[in-house]
């Protein structure tokens, strides 16, 4: 059902954890549907220096979270905002159709974390 790449990211997820005093935190999903993703960003000069995640959910939810952290690390926030859920799924060699809706939210979580960062900066 899952590609080898999904299973590999599920088994050895990259960048798991939290960043204390993160510049931006984004959370998407809810316990009702069974997937919750939280992304932590460390941003310097609009570049994502570090990224960590924590995810409650199925294999696809964990794998997409792990994949997106690899895709945006070292990128500018403008570049990260252009990465879509679809692109994350493609980078994993595709997801089963029923997973595209419910568990493919990792890019949204990154975007939410960037928004949090921008909101905080604008207030400060």
């Amino acid at each position, binding site marked *: 059902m*899952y590609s080898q790449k999904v*299973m590999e990211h*599920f*088994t050895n*997820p990259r960048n*798991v954890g*939290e960043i204390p005093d993160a510049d931006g935190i984004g*959370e998407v999903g809810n*316990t*009702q*549907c*069974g*997937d*919750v*993703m*939280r992304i932590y960003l460390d941003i310097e000069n609009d570049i994502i220096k570090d990224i960590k*995640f*924590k*995810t*409650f*959910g*199925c*294999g*696809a*939810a*964990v794998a997409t979270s792990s994949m997106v952290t690899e895709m945006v690390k070292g990128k500018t926030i403008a570049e990260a905002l252009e990465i879509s859920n679809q692109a994350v799924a493609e980078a994993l060699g595709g997801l089963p159709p*029923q*997973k595209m809706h*419910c*568990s493919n939210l990792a890019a949204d979580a990154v975007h939410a974390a960037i928004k949090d960062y921008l909101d905080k900066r604008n207030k400060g």
Partner: protein
Amino acid sequence: MRRVYLDHSATTPVDREVADLMMVYFTEKYGNPSSIHSFGREARHALEEARSQVAGLLGAKPEEITFTSGGTEADNLAILGLAEARQEKGRHLIVSAIEHHAVLDTVKYLEKAGFALTVLPVNSAGIVELDEVIKSLRPDTILVSVMHANNEVGSIQPVAEIGRIVREHGAAFHIDAVQTFGKIPVNVEELKADLLTISAHKIYGPKGVGALYVRKGVRISPLMHGGGQEKKRRSGTENTPAIIGFGKACELAVQRMTEEAERVKKLRDTLLTGIVESIKYVKVNGPQGDLRLPNNVNVSIEFVEGESLLLSLDMLGIAASSGSACTSGSLDPSHVLLAMGLPHEIAHGSLRFTLGRQNTEEDVAYVLEHLPKIVERLRKISPLYDQFNKTK
């Protein structure tokens, strides 16, 4: 790699003796049981013997058994067949909230066609309460359908008591006994059943065959029209090899049932106790003790999701199942766990192990060795576990 199959409520392997017998009816005794020549007669003879074997295990008469393509067809035949035959008398149906989809979706189909439907709630252990049955009966109630034991949480329902109430009222009573048949005694007289569904592949028989018990004198309309086989209740050439395999599986179940139930119950208790003792924040789903199927373990492991548990177990060769949304193919977790009042996030973390004939103490030890490590790993990446630890 070691492989441990703990999903016997999904299906079972076909017993070698059953498979060997079936092979004869594929390649040598292949006649059509409706033919009058010797080829047909030998197939007919074996078919009727199988019918007697199935009837014997149910305490029924052979002519009360109709073979079908499986449990789903038998449930459909019972409900649609009875509703059509009795719709002049009334159009109200009653089922429990934790029925298999073969029952639930069939009565919902009838509801759309104009029948009235009452869905009975269950208590937190997953058991229907008799008061609810009594309250829901109406003068126009024609059918009550309650499963003998639930496939997910193993809760055994008070079907004999429900059967007595329903019979007194004058409605028909259907029992889906797919999960109990061959595991614990199922007797149509004691259970006051008018219609009762069973399936072969849950008792080491082949897939693609089941049966509906129809009490003598109860009329149902057929779903299949054609050659008039099975006393016109189910047209279509009989699946002779599968039916004969089903009969043999029943014969073996009779010999082994009592001893096997005791053996498996010990393994179940070791597994259940082991999980609860080695992992924190675990909730047992379903009743404890004798109200639970002897082979069923169902737990919710908090802060982790069911599908990721299954994937992790599968990588170690362990086969289990879950009621999480991801495994049900919908956005909602198991309707059974929700009916028992579990919050969504706890239902998403459910894990079911169902034991069977080839399982050993070593299999249980293997699960207990690995499951705590899997849970620890998944909790480390779970934001819900973080949140819990920060707020406790």
